């Protein structure tokens, strides 16, 4: 009951005209920032942080949280319409969202994405409201071996993601992991893999540089060649009954959004993990448990609903350790945390006691932001579809231009843009030879979390690998992950043995 009265108080804060206006403005701005390839919630929040000094801290936080939410919705738009993941959190959305758009069902993909995001957001905020202080302690129990085990599990759910050519798939995973190791080896403090001593490699290879190269430039070159100049991008149209039908269709995908929401929320809470592994795992598990896993990757609406519900759930989840422990659960919350410090609030266990108005105003604003992001997103769907109807010879150069800016913006570095072009051309050529590219993109996202966690664990244990098996949380996760990793191998051996018979 106490929670409900706090929440009611929170809603009074949100319905203040200034705050409500900020929520609407925030989600709209966030939606557009998220829809740009290369810009995600981190950029949106970081860029608009100083502008929040014009309003009181509670309003400022509400505004930034609204941008965060809007950007999470927006990420799907770029994934579906351009085939370029707008941020790492939206990688999994491209797997089925893009094929749907190519089949002329961009409207369905966009609406399912918005619907699933709304559901994921709502479930996770409800969980947040009910269990915040309780769950905060779970986050603290996750040390290095536990996070590593979780990363292993994320990989495992993705084995056999694409490609029938086994050596090429393994090659793709490994090259992504090696690229993720470029930059600084944090364990020894030494620079690592600085190719030709070019200083641009010191900050490592940003996931976006590879993703935009592969999906922006490589994919466009491929489409231009295949289409022989006769591309009609999309014939999707939209009507009000159509929107309602797709929304109802989203509700029928209850299995994928339940998996997505719960998994996303839980993984989001864990520090260092964040929304990306959550959405990838949600996609992998939905695919594994589906009746027809082979339909995934070819335009399956469930494959859009799972990662989209998961990444929104995770963005709420990652605010939990930020508010209750002062630990950012994702890069975006790290910036939000910085903002709170600047406003003179001390995030951490005392915040819930000392700053009730702030905390509950923020929680209530999440409900509002989620609702408005959903409505505004649906409202813009016709405009997005109209853009898809542009002639291909105008759409293609626009995508190249967006890729150029998107490659530059995250680190503001021309080095990254050149690298993106090399990756794009390389991906185009290799793709013609059936090398799958998605595993490399996944690997470069998960690699920078997995490797240091593995080595920190081993340093703590003095080089004893049993640390991954003997701890109460890490142990079971590691065992499950290894079992999943070995499953395809066992199947392969089984088939080879049976074949001669």
């Amino acid at each position, binding site marked *: 009951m106490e929670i409900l009265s706090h929440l009611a108080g929170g809603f009074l804060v949100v319905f203040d005209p200034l705050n409500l206006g900020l929520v609407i403005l925030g989600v709209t701005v966030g939606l557009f*920032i998220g829809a740009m390839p290369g*810009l995600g919630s981190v*950029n949106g929040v970081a*860029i608009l942080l100083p502008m929040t000094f014009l309003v009181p801290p509670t309003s400022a936080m509400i505004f930034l949280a609204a941008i965060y939410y809007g950007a999470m919705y927006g990420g799907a738009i770029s994934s579906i319409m351009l085939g370029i993941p707008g941020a790492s959190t939206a990688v999994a959305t491209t797997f089925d969202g893009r094929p749907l758009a190519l089949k002329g069902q961009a409207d369905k993909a966009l609406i399912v994405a918005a619907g699933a995001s709304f559901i994921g957001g709502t479930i996770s905020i409800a969980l947040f409201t009910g269990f915040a202080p309780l769950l905060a302690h779970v986050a603290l129990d996750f040390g290095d071996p536990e996070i590593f085990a979780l990363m292993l599990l994320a990989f495992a759910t993705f084995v056999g993601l694409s490609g029938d*050519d*086994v*050596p*090429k798939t*393994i*090659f793709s995973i*490994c*090259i992504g*992991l*090696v690229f993720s*190791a470029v930059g600084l*080896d944090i*364990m*020894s403090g*030494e620079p*690592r*893999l600085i*190719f030709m001593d070019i200083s641009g490699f010191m900050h490592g290879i940003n996931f976006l540089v590879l993703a935009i190269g592969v999906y922006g*430039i490589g994919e*466009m*070159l491929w489409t*231009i*060649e295949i289409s*022989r100049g006769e591309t009609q991008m999309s014939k999707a149209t939209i009507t009000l009954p159509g929107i309602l039908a797709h929304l109802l269709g989203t509700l029928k995908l209850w299995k994928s959004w339940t998996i997505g929401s719960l998994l996303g929320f839980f993984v989001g809470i864990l520090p260092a993990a964040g929304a990306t592994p959550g959405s990838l795992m949600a996609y992998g598990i939905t695919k594994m448990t589906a009746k027809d896993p082979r339909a995934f990757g070819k335009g399956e609406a469930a494959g859009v609903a799972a990662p989209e519900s998961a990444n929104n759930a995770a963005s709420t989840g990652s605010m939990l350790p930020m508010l209750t422990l002062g630990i950012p659960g994702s890069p975006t919350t790290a910036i939000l945390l910085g903002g709170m410090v600047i406003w003179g609030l001390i995030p951490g266990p005392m915040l819930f006691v000392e700053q009730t108005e702030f905390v509950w105003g923020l929680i209530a604003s999440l409900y509002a932001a989620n609702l408005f992001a959903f409505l505004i997103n649906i409202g813009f769907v016709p405009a997005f579809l109209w853009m898809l109807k542009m*002639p291909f*010879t*105008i759409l*293609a*150069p*626009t995508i*190249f*231009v967006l890729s*150029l*800016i998107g490659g*530059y*913006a995250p680190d*503001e570095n*021309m080095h990254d*843009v*050149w690298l993106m*072009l090399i990756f*794009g051309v390389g991906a*185009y*050529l*290799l793709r*013609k*030879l*059936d*090398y799958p590219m998605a595993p490399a993109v996944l690997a470069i996202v998960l690699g920078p979390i997995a490797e240091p966690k*593995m*080595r920190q*664990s*081993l*340093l703590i244990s*003095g*080089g004893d690998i049993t640390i991954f098996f003997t701890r109460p949380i890490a142990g079971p996760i590691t065992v499950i992950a290894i079992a999943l990793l070995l499953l395809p191998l066992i199947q392969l051996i089984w088939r080879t043995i049976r074949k001669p018979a």
Partner: protein
Amino acid sequence: MRRAELVAAVLMAAFSGYLMWKSAELPFGWVPDEGPGGGAFPFWLSAIMLVCCVWIMVNWYLRKTPPSQSEEPFMDDYARRMFFLVGGGVFGMIGLVHIVGMYGAIALFLLYYVRFLGRHSWRTTIPIAVGAPVAAFFFFDVALRIVLPKGYLEPLFIPLYRIFL
């Protein structure tokens, strides 16, 4: 296609070898009481890449995969032409950023692509080639304050900064 498959495998094998050599700048063995050294992770993964390349070559020899069976050309005339026109255009655009800045490069690239590759009329081309950089300037430089490079056109933007920033 069959030849390209082998060439790609050999090139990737060479690249894997380079990555192994580069990773070996840091210790790649097992450091007692600490676990793997700084170079171990990329070194052994590159080694796996090398093994995969050899595997691909074996598949090539046995003609087991579709690209190793195909006798079609890797790139036909159309593909090659489009690759050089479009890929070259993107290359040119990125190169021009260093000279005329992001906005100048975008305008020239759109002019080239929409007018000469897309064969649209000047009436379509000019608004796009002018409108896109202007919109991008207001979205990035002014609204988001991500200042994109200006190259040698920087002095032109100084009065704009004074007005809008």
